[in-house]
Every structure is written in C-alpha cells, then in structure tokens.
C-alpha cells in the first residue's frame, strides 16, 4: 500500500474546470457519433435533452400500443368468422408485445415501467390521438389495419434507423409485425368490398371516417411542428411530418383502387414540381381538440386502462410477495447446506 499522505481538497475552481472538460469531451464524442450517424447505447453519455426527448417519444409510443389494443379488442368477441377471430386476437396480442418491447427500451433510459404506466393513467402522458376515435363496425377492423397501421408503418420504418440503439432494434420487430397487421386490414376491406352491398357500404363508411384522422397521425404540418427539427438533428426522426404524410397518401391512392373503394378527398393529386402527393385540407382544430382530451373516446380509453391496472394490483402484489418468499426459502436452504 502506498504511503499514507494527507490529501488536501483541490481548489474548487479546478474541480469545476475538470468537470467542464469531461462534459465537453462527452458532448464532442456524442456530436461525433451523430455526425457519423452511429448508434447511442444505454451506457453512453447523452445530453439530458436527448434523453428526455427519447423517453417521451418511446413511452408515448408504448402507451399508444397499449391504448390501441382497446378499439380492436372490442371486436374479438364478435369477429364474424373463426379465422378472423384468430387473426384479430393474434394482432391485438402483438400490440401488447410491442408495448412490452417499447417500455423495455424506455426503461434503458432510466424510468421504470410502473412510473410510465402511472403517468398514463393519471393523464400526464400522451398516446396517439387516433385511438380516441371509436370502432363501431367490423369494417373498422379493416380500416384501422389498413390505414392506421399503414400510417404507423410509414412513421416507423425510418425509426428502425433511430440513433438510439434499443429503440431502433425494437422497431425492427415492431415493423415486421405491423406489416402483417396492415395486410390483414387490407384483406378485411377487400373481402367486404367484394361482398354484399351492405358489406361494401360498411367498408366505405369506415374508410371515410378513418381517412382524415389517419393523415393527422403524422402530426402538424412542418411549419407548425417545433420539435421536429431537433429530433431530425439527433437522427431520431429521418423525414418530416409532411414528407411522411405525402408518402402515405401515395401508398393509399394505389391500394384503394385494388380494394375497390374510394378515398373521401377529391383534392388528392401528385405535384410534379415538388414530387409529393397533395391532399385536401385537414381539420387541425379537431386534432387539437382530441389532443386536449376532448375526443369521442378519451375518457373511456383511459378509464379502461385505469380499471385493468387497479383490478390487477392484488395480482401483481401477490406475484412479488411470492417471489420474495421463494428467494428467502432458497437462501435458507443454501444456509443449511453451508
């Protein structure tokens, strides 16, 4: 051992200087990784604002998956064929799985699932507003799959390259499953469109109702989206809201012809100058209303989540208590062996 010496504390100013120097090095390393478009992992240093932005985005995404289970779970018991029932069950189950990966990804940023769940139930956290619209008919299962999941795919495929490793990797699996979800929605609409006049009308009605809300899933127009710029600089977001929306419109325009239905927007056109798809005006006032909690199902969705969570409290407590007892038992057994 080294000879004991009396350490005098370094002067405060030199400590600050060291810390500032370390911080500057870490920031420079982070900036270099952003410039190289490489990945940030949970143990890497990251700016507080980057962590906060990601945590907000990933947890909102997880909440959206969990709340998004409800309008579809609503139809599991009434699915009109056993095959459709099986496919719908598998789909809603996938969404619970997506919620799980995403909460796990968010946990790597230092917040527990319990805290995130509490924020959701208390109305402190947001989820995608699209799930505050009702699913009154079977055709909504088709429209949600084809349009809502379709929009989600446009949004999420670029997120597979998000700069935060756990998020990007979670999105790879999520996207694979989402593309199945979109196909099943497409197939439901196709079958309805080729069915009886009542079935076809049901399908067209659902497409009419979900069209504008699906387009608004990409968020406000670029001029009015203050956070987008920073997210793009951090390689979280790769394309702007309007770019993604345009891409989605282009996809639907072709597919709706195959389905044999129409989109409720006669202003859709391809603009040769900007090489983008243009659409009719969207009611952003309604978007803000639903976002502010005044949508058709906001209260219902949150209440259902709250109730499931509270009804399950005794089960979670029992599981923890049992696990603790098992650990004690194992330790006692090990003591006896020793």
């Amino acid at each position: 051992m080294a000879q004991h010496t009396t350490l005098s504390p370094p002067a405060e100013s030199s400590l600050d200087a060291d810390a500032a120097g370390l911080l500057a090095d870490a920031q420079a390393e982070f900036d270099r990784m952003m410039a190289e478009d490489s990945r940030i992992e949970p143990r890497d240093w990251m700016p507080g604002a980057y962590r906060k932005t990601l945590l907000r985005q990933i947890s909102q995404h997880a909440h959206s998956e969990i709340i998004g289970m409800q309008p579809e779970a609503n139809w599991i018991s009434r699915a009109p064929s056993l095959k459709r029932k099986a496919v719908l069950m598998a789909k809603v189950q996938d969404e619970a799985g997506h919620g799980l990966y995403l909460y796990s990804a968010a946990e790597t940023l230092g917040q527990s699932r319990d805290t995130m769940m509490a924020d959701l139930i208390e109305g402190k956290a947001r989820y995608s507003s699209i799930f505050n619209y009702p699913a009154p008919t079977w055709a909504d299962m088709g429209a949600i799959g084809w349009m809502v999941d379709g929009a989600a795919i446009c949004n999420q495929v670029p997120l597979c390259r998000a700069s935060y490793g756990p998020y990007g990797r979670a999105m790879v699996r999520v996207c694979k499953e989402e593309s199945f979800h979109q196909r099943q929605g497409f197939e439901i609409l196709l079958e309805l469109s080729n069915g009886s006049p009542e079935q076809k009308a049901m399908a067209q009605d659902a497409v009419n109702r979900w069209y504008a809300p699906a387009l608004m899933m990409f968020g406000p127009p670029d001029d009015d989206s203050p956070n987008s710029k920073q997210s793009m600089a951090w390689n979280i977001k790769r394309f702007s809201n309007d770019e993604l929306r345009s891409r989605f419109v282009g996809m639907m325009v072709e597919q709706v012809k195959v389905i044999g239905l129409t989109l409720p927007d006669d202003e859709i056109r391809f603009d040769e100058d900007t090489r983008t798809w243009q659409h009719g005006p969207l009611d952003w006032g309604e978007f803000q209303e639903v976002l502010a909690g005044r949508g058709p199902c906001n209260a219902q969705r949150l209440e259902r989540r709250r109730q499931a969570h509270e009804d399950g409290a005794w089960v979670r407590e029992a599981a923890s208590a049992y696990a603790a007892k098992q650990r004690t038992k194992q330790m006692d057994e090990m003591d006896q062996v020793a």
Partner: protein
Amino acid sequence: MTGPSTSAAHEDVTTGVAGGDGNASATRITPGNALRPEDIALEVRTGAIRPTDDAAEYALRLGDDALILAQRLGHWISRAPELEEDVALGNIALDQLGHARSFLTYAGGAWDKSEDNLAYVRREHEFRSAHLVEQPNGDFAVTIARQFLISFYQYELYRHLMGSTDATVAAIAAKAVKEVDYHRDHSAQWVLRLGQGTDESRRRMIHGLRLMWPYVNELFDEDPLTLRLVASGITVAPAIIREEFDRLTGQVLADADLEVPDVPAAPGGGRRGEHSEHLGYILAEMQVLAREHPGANW
C-alpha cells in the same frame, strides 16, 4: 409458445382465405408442418377424410369446449393484470381457438358444415360445451381456477387421444397437447403464486377454486357416446383420465398449501345441450354480426 401459435396464425393470412395445402395431411404432422384447420377442411372437401357420426359428435364436444373457452379468455386481452398476462392469456385463447377450428372443421365433415357454420349458426341447445368453460371470468383468480381445471383435464385427454384409432382426432390431439402443456404450466404457476402470495390472493384463489370445482365431474361423465367411443378405441375411458387429473392437480394444490374444495358437484348436462345460464349471452355476442349477414363471406 408465443412464437409458434402466433406465427401459425400469421401464416394463415398469407395463404389466403380459401387456404388448404394439398401437400399437408390432416393425419400426418411433421416438424415445421403444423396441422391447420384449412388442411383438414381440404381433406374433408376432397373426401380424403370423413368422420363417423360418433367421431363427429365427439369432435363437436371437444371443439365446443375449446371455442367457448377461447371466447371467455379473449375478453382478458387489454384487461389483464400485467402486459405479460395480456400476452399469455391471449396466447392461450388463440391456442384454444385453433383447436376449436380443427375439431369443428372435422366434425362438420359428417354433416357438410364448415367450422363457421357450426360456430355461428347453431342454436344454444345444439352446442355441446361443458358448463366449466361457460363460467364467467370473474376476477383473475377465478379465471386461473378455471384454467387450472380445464388445462389439466385437456392435457390428460389429448395425451391419450394421440393414440386414438381415429387418425384425425389423434393428429389434432398431437398438436394440441404441446400447447395445452404450456397452459397447464401457466395455470399451475399462478395457483402457486396466488395461493402463497398475499392473504388477499390466497383468499381469492380459494374462492375461485370453490366456484369452479362443482363443474369438474361433468368433464369425466360417461354416457352412451363415450362408451361406444371407448369400445372403438377412439377415446379413453374417462375414469383413467380422472385418476391422473386428481393426482396431478392434487400435487399442485398441496404445493400451494391449498385443498380440494369440499363443494357439491353440479349435474352438468352440456353434452346433451342443457347449458348453464351463461351460454346464451356468450352466443348472442359471438354470433351477432354473422347472423346479421346470413351467408356473407368475411
């Protein structure tokens, strides 16, 4: 378990609505070539397989148990105590629905009826489900008690049915038994956790077992059909399965420091079309849309 059963459901979509793989065999399953209801339907359509009336009646019982249970379990999806349980109960529901589709498709072969025809157009007294699977979900402990009883029963039954003289019944059972083995594990683990977790969970678990136990006897009832099926080697004597059921459920209960509830058995009657008061509501909900559009394709 999540992998195989969900991916099987996913594959259905890619093969289209008509489905059915000419190279698959309803009576021969190989690794990576899981038996699907579409394959059974194809063999029924082409006349390659056709159940005897007795085998069809029997498949109807097994299919109805699985279908009604799937319908009950499906309600938990988006309402479970933990996300992991949304996935687990959804998975079990999906497995049961898969078994139901296979058994109903096979049963329908005797009467030229499809699985959907049997599920959506039959009336209440034409269903053959046991009262146990019709019981309401209750709280999580009630659902676990029901799962505990049905999964241990189904496991023993399917294990024996793998040796059935009816090759299709044997093939469906061979696929189902692997999945039900997981259902058994899931329910037994929860009986242990709830039985030994907290005072409240123990009280609820005991209550759940008391609510469900009256419907155990019906599962093992012998009637003229089962006697004929035993004689022809299509199924096994219920008393044989009962013995194993009692032994294995007894072990789990002992480990959980719980007892077999001392409650009178209910008479049952589901196999004769005499159902609990609950079934009417289950069918009303399940059939409403299909009945609104008779003959429609979905």
